[in-house]
């Protein structure tokens, strides 16, 4: 819903939220359900009701627990039966500078005394986190602290020992250090948010006296959106591709009219410099694993000439798909998406022409568009939009773009073979299929939470749930990596089976779409059967749970030779394979022969 994509109108959301919620719940979207505990140091109802709307819009249906007013410490440390019964999937600790109890009081205090205050204040919060992790082992989101609006000592407040601002800044650094050391712990950066909004707009002392609101009601949707972005990122619902227009988006001017020497790009002019800065900004997304694509109404040779301009920071190689033609842009997005093996919904579209943005919004209501009116405006919208919110960084994120480029080379090679099996053999594929090694756990969880298409159950796991599975003696776990002569695809397939006497239930079977039609799923099945036999298991039960996105695996188990046991009206089905007479199916991938570096 456009009203809930950044930049949104907070006042509209606050006033119309009941109607918006009704509309979202009635739109027929399939959503994953998550239980979210909000432990607040101030009134949290408004945060929660805005958070609910944003999450519904991100495809997550939340159920909430809210602590009693200002009982975040008690709930966390001493526990509450209600919270225990609630068993949260994720916990959000909404505290602010209003909840700091050990702020410096007097300039007479020594630096050592202030340091002790700081340590005590930090430990107060660390006790909360330790206790929650022990009890619930689920992801935790913690606000850091905003600066106060009022200062007794002027600038000294920000740097002197007894300064409140200085104390808060130091505490924020300690919170960040903790987050870096602990997986599954995320900072909701209200220090940034309050600065971006402006402290005079953020703070509202009367709202605190009257309602125990820690910030102005109008900025609560901003806080909620920021939290919603972290949550949807944890559950793998980020966008994946930035699709960019060229003329007046990546450079000034129209290359078809002005020629490559006529476009405005380079530090020599103000406008040219702004586009260099924009391209540099976009390129940094690529470093974090976001894919880049071009969608431009241009002759292809002109588009390439522009990207090869000496001052162009982005080169043709930086893009996984370049569509420069005169087709309508919604068709081009669709084509780019299918080339890359993703859904168009995972794109963000950037164009200086509002009419093009409108076309995309009409055809793909879930694709956020950024109408570039100025370079700085576009960078701000991308920053605050949270489309690519980072909650963890895996090795795959760092190499993603190269892996997709290697795919393009494979496609080219395929054209030279008339027999598909010969083509597969020519790729010289090597797979490593292992248990869940600790170094891959994060990547396995990440892949599990974002795979939608080749995924029979679409079961999601938090990092701690995955850790539990990884240590369980009752599960068979397969983590598949695939490499070929064009490159290493990294971890591409995950299977989890639950042993029950002589039966194995397949809880999870998924594969990255970038290795479709390579027989990797057959190699995984061979290995699964081998391990089942070692454990004396005789049959495997497979489950297909239909979602709007996983139709491609509706008949996966049938293709494996499973027998159908049941089919429900909603499209779900159950399958069974007797493995006593199973013969190996993979003949093109060498498995566990070559060393894979597990760095």
């Amino acid at each position, binding site marked *: 819903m456009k009203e809930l994509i950044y930049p949104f109108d907070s006042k509209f959301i606050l*006033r119309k939220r*009941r109607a918006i919620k009704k509309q979202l719940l009635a739109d027929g979207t399939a959503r994953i359900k998550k239980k979210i505990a909000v432990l607040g140091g101030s*009134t949290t109802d408004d945060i929660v009701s805005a958070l609910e709307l944003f999450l519904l819009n991100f495809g997550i249906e939340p159920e909430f627990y809210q602590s009693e007013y200002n009982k975040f410490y008690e709930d966390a440390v001493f526990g509450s039966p209600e919270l225990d019964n609630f068993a949260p999937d994720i916990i959000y600790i909404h505290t602010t500078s209003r909840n700091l109890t050990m702020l410096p009081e007097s300039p007479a205090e020594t630096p050592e005394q202030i340091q002790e205050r700081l340590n005590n204040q930090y430990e107060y919060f660390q006790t909360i986190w330790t206790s929650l992790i022990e009890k619930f082992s689920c992801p935790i989101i913690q606000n850091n602290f905003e600066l106060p609006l009022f200062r007794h000592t002027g600038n000294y407040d920000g740097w002197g020992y007894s300064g409140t601002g200085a104390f808060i800044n130091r505490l924020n650094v300690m919170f960040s250090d903790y987050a870096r050391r602990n997986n599954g712990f995320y900072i909701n950066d209200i220090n940034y948010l309050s600065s971006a909004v402006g402290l005079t707009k953020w703070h509202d002392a009367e709202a605190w006296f*009257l309602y125990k609101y820690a910030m102005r009601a109008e900025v609560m949707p901003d806080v909620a959106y920021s939290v919603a972005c972290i949550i949807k990122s944890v559950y793998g619902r980020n966008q994946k591709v930035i699709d960019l227009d060229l003329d007046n988006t990546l450079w000034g001017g129209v290359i078809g009219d002005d020629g490559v020497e006529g476009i405005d790009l380079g530090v020599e002019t103000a406008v040219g410099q702004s586009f260099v800065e924009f391209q540099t900004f976009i390129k940094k997304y690529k470093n974090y694993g976001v894919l880049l694509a071009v969608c431009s109404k241009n002759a292809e040779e002109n588009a390439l000439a522009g990207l090869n301009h000496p001052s162009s920071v982005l080169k043709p190689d930086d893009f996984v798909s370049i569509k420069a033609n005169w087709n309508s842009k919604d068709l081009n997005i669709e084509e780019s998406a299918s080339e890359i093996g993703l859904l168009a919904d995972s794109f963000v579209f950037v164009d200086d022409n509002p009419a093009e943005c409108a076309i995309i919004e009409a055809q793909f209501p879930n694709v956020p568009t950024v109408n570039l009116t100025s370079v700085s405006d576009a960078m701000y919208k991308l920053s605050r939009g949270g489309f690519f919110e980072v909650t963890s960084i895996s090795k795959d994120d760092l190499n993603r773009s190269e892996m997709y480029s290697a795919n393009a080379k494979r496609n080219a090679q395929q054209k030279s073979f008339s027999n598909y099996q010969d083509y597969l053999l020519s790729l010289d594929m090597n797979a490593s299929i292992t248990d869940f090694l600790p170094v891959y756990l994060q990547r396995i969880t990440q892949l599990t939470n974002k795979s939608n298409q080749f995924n029979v159950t679409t079961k999601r796991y938090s990092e701690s749930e995955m850790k539990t599975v990884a240590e369980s003696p009752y599960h068979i776990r397969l983590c598949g990596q695939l490499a070929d002569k064009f490159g290493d695809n990294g971890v591409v397939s995950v299977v989890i089976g639950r042993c029950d006497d002589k039966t194995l239930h397949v809880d999870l079977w998924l594969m990255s779409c970038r290795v479709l039609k390579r027989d990797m799923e057959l190699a995984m099945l061979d290995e699964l059967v081998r391990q089942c036999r070692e454990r004396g298991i005789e049959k495997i039960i497979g489950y297909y749970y239909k979602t709007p996105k996983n139709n491609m695996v509706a008949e996966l188990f049938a293709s494996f030779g499973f027998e159908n046991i049941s089919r429900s009206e909603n499209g779900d089905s159950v399958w069974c394979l007797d493995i006593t007479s199973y013969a190996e199916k993979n003949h093109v991938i060498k498995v566990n022969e070559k060393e894979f570096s597990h760095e």
Partner: protein
Amino acid sequence: MNKNEIIKRLTDVFRDIFDDDSIIITEKTTANDIDDWDSIEHINLIGAVEEEFGMRFKMREVSGMKNVGEMINIIAERGN
């Protein structure tokens, strides 16, 4: 601004906040007359009214208003 105009705009605010187009308010309306009007929605209502009329209630007024009539009087005095 006359009272009729205030009531008209105020009705729109009430209908949005409680998502109920059948709400009709009078000077005598109180929180007891509207099912969902609890302390949390009271805060939202105050915020939306302030936004609609470009004014702010004083702290004493927020907790002291007995019915919609008193709200209207304050709006008539300071609202836009």
